[in-house]
């Protein structure tokens, strides 16, 4: 009976062709988009195009001019400088032909119109210049013979910090988007979970009624339906994970088996929540489906699918949400794998997810337990 029901539930799940198609399409399309979108950032290949800067000289500064020349002589200069007067510079700035004005007086000062990345880069360039100049001036006064050595030191990029991140620190801020994507794919199990409830309950669908009057234990039938939903969902999650791992070659940690396991746990949670939602009340399958996707979308939003920083924001203000939000917990599974090589936190999350699944499935069973209905 269990196997018979399982076989046909699986068959009919897999035959929901357009559902399966979009289910596969979702992580593949979105994963590709992420990859294309973040490609530049991802591979640390941000090549900023030359930032145009206007220079207004009130007092001439020999050192500054030398620096400008040496930058312009570089193969791939970061800035292009235009020497001009104040009025012209401001005109250029307002029209967007330059990103900032460096005014060279006794001290350097900056004039901006906007406050964005380019401006941040200009500012940090000037800061660095000013501090280095201060050092050079100081040395030139006290020990001029040591100047070449000092300049050499200034030009060298120190590598003072050693990382001791446990897994070698191969984490990238954009990895979290892929982790959340896999999480959402797994949680889409909610839709199949809803079907498990509605298609087995006598008062929710004609098929449910027909099943209810057959001589079988309702619990056995439900468990086999849930198993079928779980298997179906796992197929989607495996496909998505494989795509992310081996086609997009996103680094999700060294323990690949555990990555797949994380997806499976996510699918289990998704199905159990969907099953629970499906078991509540008498609204139509469609309403319940809509409610569960909305819930899922919101949970994923809180765990940072859309805005990567969201999980941290939540952690700052309402840490409890991150402890119980299944989307956050699932994406944390992936996060732990790519960050830590000890599994303490992984197990904590796993345990929370298992408890959530058990709670929702038990809740669903309790709601669907009664076999005789007031209304049909």
């Amino acid at each position: 009976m269990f196997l018979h029901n399982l076989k046909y539930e699986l068959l009919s799940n897999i035959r929901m062709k357009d559902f399966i198609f979009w289910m596969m399409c979702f992580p593949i399309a979105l994963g590709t988009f992420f990859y294309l979108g973040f490609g530049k950032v991802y591979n640390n290949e941000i090549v900023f195009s030359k930032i145009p800067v206007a220079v207004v000289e009130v007092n001439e500064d020999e050192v500054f001019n030398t620096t400008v020349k040496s930058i312009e002589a570089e193969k791939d200069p970061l800035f292009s400088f235009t020497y001009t007067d104040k009025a012209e510079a401001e005109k250029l700035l307002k029209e967007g032909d330059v990103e900032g004005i460096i005014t060279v007086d006794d001290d350097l000062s900056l004039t901006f119109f906007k406050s964005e990345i380019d401006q941040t880069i200009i500012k940090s360039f000037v800061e660095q210049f000013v501090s280095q100049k201060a050092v050079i001036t100081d040395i030139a006064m006290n020990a001029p013979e040591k100047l070449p050595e000092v300049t050499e030191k200034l030009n060298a990029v120190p590598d003072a910090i050693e990382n001791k991140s446990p897994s070698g620190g191969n984490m990238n801020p954009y990895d979290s988007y892929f982790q959340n994507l896999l999480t959402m794919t797994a949680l889409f199990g909610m839709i199949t979970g809803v079907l498990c409830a509605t298609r087995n309950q006598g008062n929710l669908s004609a098929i449910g009624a027909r099943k209810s009057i057959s001589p079988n234990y309702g619990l056995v039938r439900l468990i086999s339906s849930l198993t079928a939903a779980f298997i179906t969902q796992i197929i989607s999650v495996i496909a998505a994970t494989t795509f992310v791992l081996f086609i997009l070659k996103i680094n999700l940690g060294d323990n690949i088996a555990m990555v797949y396991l994380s997806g499976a746990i996510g699918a289990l949670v998704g199905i159990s929540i969907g099953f629970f939602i499906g078991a509540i009340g008498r609204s139509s399958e469609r309403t319940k489906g809509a409610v569960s996707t909305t819930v899922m979308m919101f949970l994923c939003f809180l765990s940072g699918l859309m805005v990567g920083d969201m999980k941290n924001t939540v952690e700052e203000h309402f840490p409890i949400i991150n402890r119980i939000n299944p989307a956050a917990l699932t994406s944390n599974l992936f996060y732990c794998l790519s960050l830590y090589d000890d599994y303490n936190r992984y197990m904590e999350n796993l345990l929370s997810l298992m408890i959530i699944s058990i709670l929702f499935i038990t809740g669903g069973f309790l709601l669907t337990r009664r076999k005789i209905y007031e209304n049909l």
Partner: protein
Amino acid sequence: MKIFETFMKIMRKHLKLSLIYISVFMVVGIMMTKSSSDSEDGYKARRLRVSVTDLDDTEASRAVVDFIAKNHDIVKVSDDMNKQLDSLYYSKTHIILTIENGYSEKLEHGETTGLFNELSVPGTNMTQLFDSQLNRYIGLVSATIAGGNTPAEASAKASEVLSQEIETVMLNDSGKGSEKEDVQNHYFLYLAYIFISVLINTLCQIHLSLKNKDINNRINCSGVSSYSQLLQVMLGTFVFVIGVYVLLIGAGVVLFGGSMFTEKGMLSMLNAFVFIIVVMMICLFISSFSPSMDVISLIANVIGLGMSFLCGVFVPQQYLGDVALSIGKFLPVYWYVKGCNTVMEKEGEIFSVSGFLICIGVQIAFAAAFFCLTMLISKNRRQTES
């Protein structure tokens, strides 16, 4: 107007569900906007929670601690590795830094590698910011030592040099307003995602109910011409779309008050209006394929999230890869986002009437294209079915 009336009736039935969608997405939009304003000003003067263990305990090393304390908050964390990981994991600490034994000595000999050991979540902006700060400090210190100073003297000098502020003038008269505009612009950007998700999830459901085979055949058999049918459906759709638009812009008015009605605000609203019409056409286009109800939310996710990521709704266009941007140019969301940025002069866009009109024009062209495609498909479908 029979079909229009039917549309309204079906719409009323879907209203409750639609309102759930709209309110959830509205909350999402507002939260995203709020969090973007948090992280925005957070980036500029963000004080991290740093734990420092000084194994060297020399004058120079204590100077480093002072230097860090000036810019960040020093916190205490247990020595236990597991506890340390915990505090990182739950963001109680951002950086756990150890100043290695021999820090001062190494510096004196001109060595700058391996002075610190750091435990942090790699690859985050916060970590990068901190690392570059510390490296720059060490660069200055080691240069000053090379100039004949002791590590202690050099540390003091470097600290002093680094504390110099660069005078920065913003030509933009509305320095404070600009930040508010930033947040408002974010709201408008997120509207792109919200419009797509809400409209596909709700409108397509309504359309599909209307396209239910029997009803559709009945309508086709009636004397109403297909042209008039489409117009009536469009009219009904339009009423719904206006409702969604008013609700979401209304939420914006509540959030931002008067600044929605400045010139920039009005232009943003116009841009959003044109965009919601594009989305409406996309919905009509999707409905013409009659997907099944279960699939709609998946489609909404693929299109909504996909376009938003490709076109710079969530991640600024500046950060996006060239491939993404060149694909983006073939998607309407790109032009909406560009329009928003042009109006608010964000992300390197400078406002010009012609630039703005191009964005609007391209969006209208997209709307028209989707409309034509819908006509073509529904015509083909009807013929093949009969």
